[in-house]
């Protein structure tokens, strides 16, 4: 992938399988964000191709990627802090009832679905009406992930999900990833922290300066090995 004269990514190739978690590791500047932007339809690759279900696709926009089932949860979770969980959940896709000028949001259905889907991620929302700012980081992440899954994500890209979480909440992330995998979703977990990737990943792709430094399976991966690969020392 070339930006002007800068080769941001070169000969990067990897695959994501349903029910599997692929961790994308790399230090800052390794090319992780570029790769995420290509995967999610924000940028078009200058070379190479993307295949979904074996079929070659091109994403003209983020919406096109989303329609193909590739959803991304960014670091900020894409939530509006002062809005309630159910309003966030259905933002831009509010369920309605009634016709014409009396068309209104089906509040009861929206709240019920939001509550149920978030519970399926292991988080009980006692009051789906409360602003999400009052929820913990892990609870907010559950809402964001549950939303992506509800609207048909088949590949879930988690962009630096642990960056804003504390130690205990990183454990809830593990739980949420596990539940998403059980639903047959393929997960791409982007992080610069091997310690967060190890408990979760089935496969590890290490990027260094725009190239793939190594692709490892869970058996071969360890924190020291991943760290040295990211830093550029040894195999």
């Amino acid at each position: 992938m070339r930006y002007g004269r800068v080769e941001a990514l070169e000969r990067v190739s990897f695959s994501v399988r349903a029910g599997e978690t692929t961790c994308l590791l790399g230090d800052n500047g390794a090319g992780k964000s570029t790769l995420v932007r290509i995967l999610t339809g924000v940028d078009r690759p200058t070379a190479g191709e993307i295949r979904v279900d074996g079929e070659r696709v091109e994403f003209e926009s983020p919406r096109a990627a989303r329609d193909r089932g590739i959803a991304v949860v960014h670091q900020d979770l894409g939530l509006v802090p002062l809005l309630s969980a159910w309003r966030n959940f259905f933002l831009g896709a509010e369920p309605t009832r009634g016709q014409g000028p009396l068309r209104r949001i089906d509040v009861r259905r929206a709240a019920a679905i939001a509550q149920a889907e978030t519970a399926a991620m292991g988080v009980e929302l006692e009051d789906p009406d409360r602003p999400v700012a009052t929820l913990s980081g892990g609870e907010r992440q559950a809402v964001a992930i549950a939303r992506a899954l509800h609207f048909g994500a088949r590949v879930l890209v988690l962009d630096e999900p642990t960056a804003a979480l504390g130690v205990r909440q990183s454990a809830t992330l593990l739980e949420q990833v596990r539940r998403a995998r059980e639903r047959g979703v393929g997960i791409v977990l982007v992080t610069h922290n091997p310690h967060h990737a190890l408990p979760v990943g089935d496969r590890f792709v290490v990027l260094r300066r725009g190239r793939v430094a190594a692709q490892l399976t869970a058996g071969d991966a360890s924190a020291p090995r991943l760290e040295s690969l990211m830093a550029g020392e040894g195999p």
Partner: protein
Amino acid sequence: MGGALLVWAFFAVVAGGPFRGLDGTAAVLNAAAPLGILAVAVALLMIGGEFDLSVGSIVGLSGMAVLLLTRHWGWPLWPALGVSAVLAAGAGLVNGWLVVRTGLPSFIVTLGTLFVFRGLTIGSARGLTGRTQLGGLGETPGYEAASWLLGSQPLGPLRVSIAWWLAVVVLGTWVLLRTPWGNWIQAAGGGAESARRAGVPVARVKIALFVSTALAAWLVAVMQAVRYTGTDALRGQMQEFHAIAAAVIGGTLLTGGYGSAVGAAIGALVFAMVQQGIVITGVDADWFQVFLGAVLLAAVLFNGWVRRRALSAG
């Protein structure tokens, strides 16, 4: 809500009978109605994350348009009302388009249009008629129907503008809390980037909000023009600040994403109570601005405290 009761109680004691009685209450409601209509529209815009400082100028522009069309060019009243509404909506579109296109803070953009619209009002009035005060609307064909709809006193001393105010509050609350648009308004103000990513047409929402504040200004202008059978090039001056103050007193956040139409209505009520209370008490009207500023500051502090409590109780 509690604050409003406090203010009422204060004046009920200090101003006594005239304030508490029917005439006093009617005076408060009549004064609150036009401000209340503006405040609801302005509150919705603020919830959507923007300001409209040109609202008062659009009041002046709309009123002058009606008077020029009818008295200078001889139009009947109802087509003049229609055209002036389109003109006001156009002003709102200009505001919205400028804010969305330039990315400048709406505070700055509408500060500019405040002067442009006011200048257009004064300039066109003086240029076409040599005067800045126009009257005689009562002789225009169609006046009686308009007067009944917009300027009458159907219930004792209570004016029909109060009914319009109520309708605007109901409509505003409905849109904000019960429709997808309302969700989009709150998201546009409280998290525009996340809203865009979710597919909310943020730019379109903001432009629509600017058009709605402009139309609210038109409604107020037209009610005043019909009631006084005339207008003045300076009509509406300062109303933008009063409307924002009323919205803020009623709990709307300056930073966007939170607020209510009912709150803005209550804010307008508080405003009117202070206004009428001072008049009735016989205190020098100059002190009105001191009072207003104090109430505004107190309301913002109180609302901030309440919100912090609500957000931390989780």
